[in-house]
């Protein structure tokens, strides 16, 4: 064996058609596993990296398959003829898949979100766990896996809740019409100052939305980092409730004015 060089091994393989095909097949498969990993780097975007790996792998496997068939002497022209007819049939059947694939390429280029972002698509909210060639997969807050076809994502309004580093929380509350709005403003601002995850800048703001039934509708807007958003939402609600109760600011109750008239009086 030691006297046999590599050339002799190849000559031996070529002399046997099956052995030749087996060697080519194994080498092709090994190359299809090894080469895609070498073509990508950590600096490349994960979705682009995945696409390159898949395209390279399937291309190498296809070339290996055709080469093996040629070595075994199988007439490919028959296959090509059948492939033509099959292509038309598959083309009609795979319109949706092709659309999803192309939509996936657009999403990869445009990148409205990346893996790890919290997004809202239609009525679905979840964390992006993968952006695949045909679909986007989300994990919802109640730990469900949702698969959304790329075509649907591209056609829908997608809200990326964690794209920017800070986010605003709008707390809507109703204040009785008899309350001192200046005092309410002071109470709310004090709550914001005492909560350390509530950003000092952008400063909290208070907006009067209008009159509701027996009340004034107020919007109290505060900012936090995206990571702290849920914590702020929970804490602020409780802290505002406690602060308003402590100062005796009552929540409005619907009021009705009742007119009492005599039985025979004209109304």
């Amino acid at each position, binding site marked *: 064996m030691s006297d046999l060089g590599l050339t002799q091994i190849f000559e031996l393989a070529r002399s046997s058609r099956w052995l030749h095909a087996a060697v080519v097949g194994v080498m092709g498969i090994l190359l299809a596993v090894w080469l895609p990993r070498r073509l990508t780097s950590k600096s490349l975007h994960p979705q682009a990296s995945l696409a390159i790996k898949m395209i390279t792998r399937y291309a190498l496997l296809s070339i290996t398959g055709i080469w093996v068939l040629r070595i075994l002497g199988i007439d490919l022209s028959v296959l090509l003829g059948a492939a033509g007819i099959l292509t038309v049939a598959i083309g009609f059947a795979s319109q949706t898949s092709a659309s999803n694939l192309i939509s996936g390429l657009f999403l990869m280029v445009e990148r409205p979100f990346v893996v790890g972002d919290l997004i809202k698509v239609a009525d679905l909210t979840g964390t992006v766990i993968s952006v695949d060639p045909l679909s986007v997969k989300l994990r919802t807050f109640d730990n469900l896996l949702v698969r959304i076809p790329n075509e649907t994502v591209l056609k829908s309004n997608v809200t990326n809740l964690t794209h*920017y*580093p*800070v986010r605003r929380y709008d707390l809507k509350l109703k204040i009785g019409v008899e309350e001192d709005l200046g005092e309410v403003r002071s109470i709310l601002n004090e709550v914001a*100052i005492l*909560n*350390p*995850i*509530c*950003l*000092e*800048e*952008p400063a909290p703001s208070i907006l009067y939305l209008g009159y509701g039934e027996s009340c004034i509708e107020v919007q109290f807007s505060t*900012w*936090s*980092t995206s990571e*702290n958003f849920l914590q702020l939402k929970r804490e602020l609600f409780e802290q505002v409730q406690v602060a308003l109760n402590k100062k005796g600011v009552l929540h409005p109750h619907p009021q009705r004015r009742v007119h009492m008239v005599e039985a025979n009086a004209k109304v």
Partner: protein
Amino acid sequence: MKAWWGSFEIPFSSATEFQIGPLNLVIERHPGEWRLAQTRVEEPLSIASAQRSVPVREVSEEMSRYAWRGESQKIDLTPRLSDRAVVSRPEQPFVIPALERVTLFVTLPLWVEATAGQPGRSLTVLPIYRPSDTWFGPTTKEGELCYASRTFCRMRREDVVARPHRALTAVHINNRAEDVLSLERIKIPAQHLALFQTEEGRLATQDVNLEWTGDADFAELKLKDWASKAEKNATLVAPPRLEPGTNLVTRAFSRIFKSA
């Protein structure tokens, strides 16, 4: 000013309470572990400072436990600056004319680091008072998360109230541009500053030099080598949390905040 930091012996199954400004820290030593409990008073600028033995308490929610198999009963408390920049404001915004310079004095919030063992290994780093988060940048799309200082920048050093749990910093601003610089907020890179004890016993950092050449909100930051400050009768207490790089250009000023 008496130092609240240093090395303290806490025998097994005993506890010591440290009052450091608004922070009340109780440290207990037990076989196999250290326990730390922290509470805070509402007044962030409290200047209380005390240390006393207290009874050992039951494990509670405010308590953190740290596994420690050594026999050492010594714990070190060291003041540290914040891990992020601190934003401070002058009492009233003011303008620095072209080619003019000004020095502002500001106090920075401090953290307490508890270390044990030889060499010292950090158990935890706690804020004496947790400052509010604040965003420093031209818009909410770009910028940096910082802490907001509760004290104003002062033009005169004598106007700065000495507090044992805050560090004094002198910020020299040099307007080298031909335009005026309107100062509303200033970002101080506290994470790159070292902490010293001055001859008066006060905590201070090295000076910060900001040179504005007219480039929007950015300024060239120059920090004096903190090792050299020790030559001026100042004792190094703690090195910077993050070593500054060279040729730092930082967004140091925010004149108009656009929330769009």
